[in-house]
């Protein structure tokens, strides 16, 4: 079932949370809304769910206009960051809730409810905890109960608001890969909100990056990492080294580093160049098109080594190079090396 948001705007007092958002999520997609806090991603999710209303714009679920419907009629599954389990009900009753509150003519029999709840608890691997209270469960278990509860009503779409935000790192990692597998199994159209770029890139088919109430970029994880559309995305997704330079005669000049770049017509003369840590080559000798830098610190990180360098102006550069290559270089702290960006993404800007 698809979701479509048209031109959604929302303000809280003088704070503009959403500025004209358009978004379509096709059936079966697993989409991440990624952005810093206050960027509008949770507001959009709550508007899709019907927990909040857009000041302007409309929401379509499965092709039908749901704008005027409240949360109750939209048939969306929703998972809260802090679980929001009914604390006085057992795990079983929590999951059964959505079936029990149905109007009598659509309400399943007691046996059907029992069967469905047990089936869902088996799906989230918690059937052995059916008669516990939420307060007796761990955070990861609570979130799985919340998921089973959301799925019990056979929702058209599943929305998750920072679903792993309240969990510790290890549980988060486990639950993440588990959720991805679950999605592949049941294929429910899902949207989740996160401020953790790693989570978004690992889980989602498609990542929509928010900032100040607008969509900065909308693409696959690969696209947003490899081809960031804006400086914000380049900075927010993954680590990045920034070079400052100017634009002149069809090229971008960053000191000795020169890249082809058409001079923009709107008179912008300055530019920022972005290179990921793994896109910088480090050599012993001057190979041209780069700069000299001093090694400050090197820390091993599995197959590669994280190297911190400072350029002659004292700016910090982060580089990741293969372990073997690092061993061949045999540099020690304080020694000079030559750094050359293999690739530089250039964004023109008003002033340097």
């Amino acid at each position, binding site marked *: 079932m698809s979701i479509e948001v048209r031109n959604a705007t929302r303000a809280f007092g003088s704070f503009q949370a959403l500025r004209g958002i358009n978004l379509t999520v096709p059936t079966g997609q697993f989409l991440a809304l990624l952005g810093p806090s206050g960027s509008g991603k949770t507001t959009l999710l709550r508007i899709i*769910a019907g927990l909040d209303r857009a000041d302007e714009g409309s929401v379509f679920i499965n092709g039908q206009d749901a704008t005027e419907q409240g949360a109750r009629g*939209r048939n969306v599954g929703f998972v809260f960051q802090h679980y929001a*389990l009914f604390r006085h009900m057992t795990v079983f009753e929590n999951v059964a809730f959505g079936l029990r*509150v149905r109007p009598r003519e659509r309400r399943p029999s007691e046996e059907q409810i029992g069967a469905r709840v047990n089936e869902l608890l088996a799906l989230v691997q918690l059937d052995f905890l059916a008669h516990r209270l939420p307060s007796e469960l761990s955070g990861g278990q609570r979130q799985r109960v919340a998921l089973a509860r959301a799925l019990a009503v056979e929702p058209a779409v599943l929305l998750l608001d920072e679903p792993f935000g309240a969990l510790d790192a290890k549980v988060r990692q486990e639950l993440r890969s588990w959720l991805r597998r679950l999605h592949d199994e049941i294929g429910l159209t899902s949207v989740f909100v996160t401020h953790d770029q790693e989570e978004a890139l690992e889980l989602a088919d498609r990542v929509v990056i928010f900032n100040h109430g607008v969509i900065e970029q909308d693409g696959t994880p690969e696209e947003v990492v490899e081809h960031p559309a804006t400086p914000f995305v380049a900075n927010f997704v993954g680590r990045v080294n920034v070079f400052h330079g100017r634009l002149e005669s069809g090229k971008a000049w960053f000191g000795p580093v020169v890249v082809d770049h058409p001079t923009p017509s709107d008179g912008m003369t300055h530019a920022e160049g972005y290179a990921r840590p793994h896109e910088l080559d480090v050599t012993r000798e001057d190979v041209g098109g780069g700069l000299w830098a001093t090694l400050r610190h090197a820390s091993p990180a599995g197959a590669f080594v994280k190297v911190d360098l400072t350029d002659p102006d004292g700016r910090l550069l982060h580089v990741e190079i293969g372990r073997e290559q690092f061993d061949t270089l045999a540099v020690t702290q304080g020694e000079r090396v030559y750094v050359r960006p293999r690739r530089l993404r250039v964004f023109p800007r008003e002033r340097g």
Partner: protein
Amino acid sequence: MASTLLARPARRGLTEPLIVRLALTTLALAFLFTFLFVPFAFIFVEALRNGWQAYVAAIEEPEALSAIWLTLLVAALTVPANAAFGVAAAWAITRFDFRGKRLLTTLIDLPFAVSPVVAGLIFVQLFGRQGWFGPWLFEHDIKIIFAVPGIVLATIFVSFPFVARELIAVMEASGREEEEAASLLGANGWQMFRRVTLPNVKWALISGVILCTARAMGEFGAVSVVSGRIRGETTTLPIHVEILYNEYAFQASFAVASLLAIVAVFTLVLQTIVEQRNRRIVDAAVPALVEKIQN
């Protein structure tokens, strides 16, 4: 983080010399003994001064029975009204944003700030023979002041903050996410209230009702002004106590007062039990709340 916020001072950190601790404890106990226990015990000593039969006679006397009956009637009308108001006000204040919300929150506490006598006078001024609505009420033969309706109105006024305040505290602590979840799962307003909200605030509601009942039964000032003290007709228990005392019927006065004292003890015991349950619920909600504030 949550643990530092909720941490209680460690016992080992208590380094005051023994003599100071003893002195403080003795002082506190002496104070309690003088100002609470002695007067309380005195009520029962005086009530039973002329023996058990005189005690029973004072209570079985028709005017006393009428006062008991009226007090119960007033409580029976006041408490449900204030429980309903309290739930509605707490719901509105904690679940919606609207203009005048702060004002409403402040107004709820007004009866605590205003002297009950003043409250009584307000009702006399509004509904009395010479008051704003007096002529209209007289024409339609409706009697409010110096009658039971006036007593009920005045009692509602002085006892209405209890339920609302208890509920607002708990409902603010527990947030609205559970209700949102219920709504998303297809629950209508009534199902959400009945199955999610009410169970979560149950103990706070009971606690508010207990306090409200105690206040409704014990109110003197406001009722004294609006009731007109018509013996056997508009005298509640506290007023009956005072009338007897003014007539030098000390033993009878204390016998009736002892009923109010028993209500007080009963309230205290119930309240302690309920508060323990309630605290457990609030405590369970606090870590999530703390986390929310930090985010």
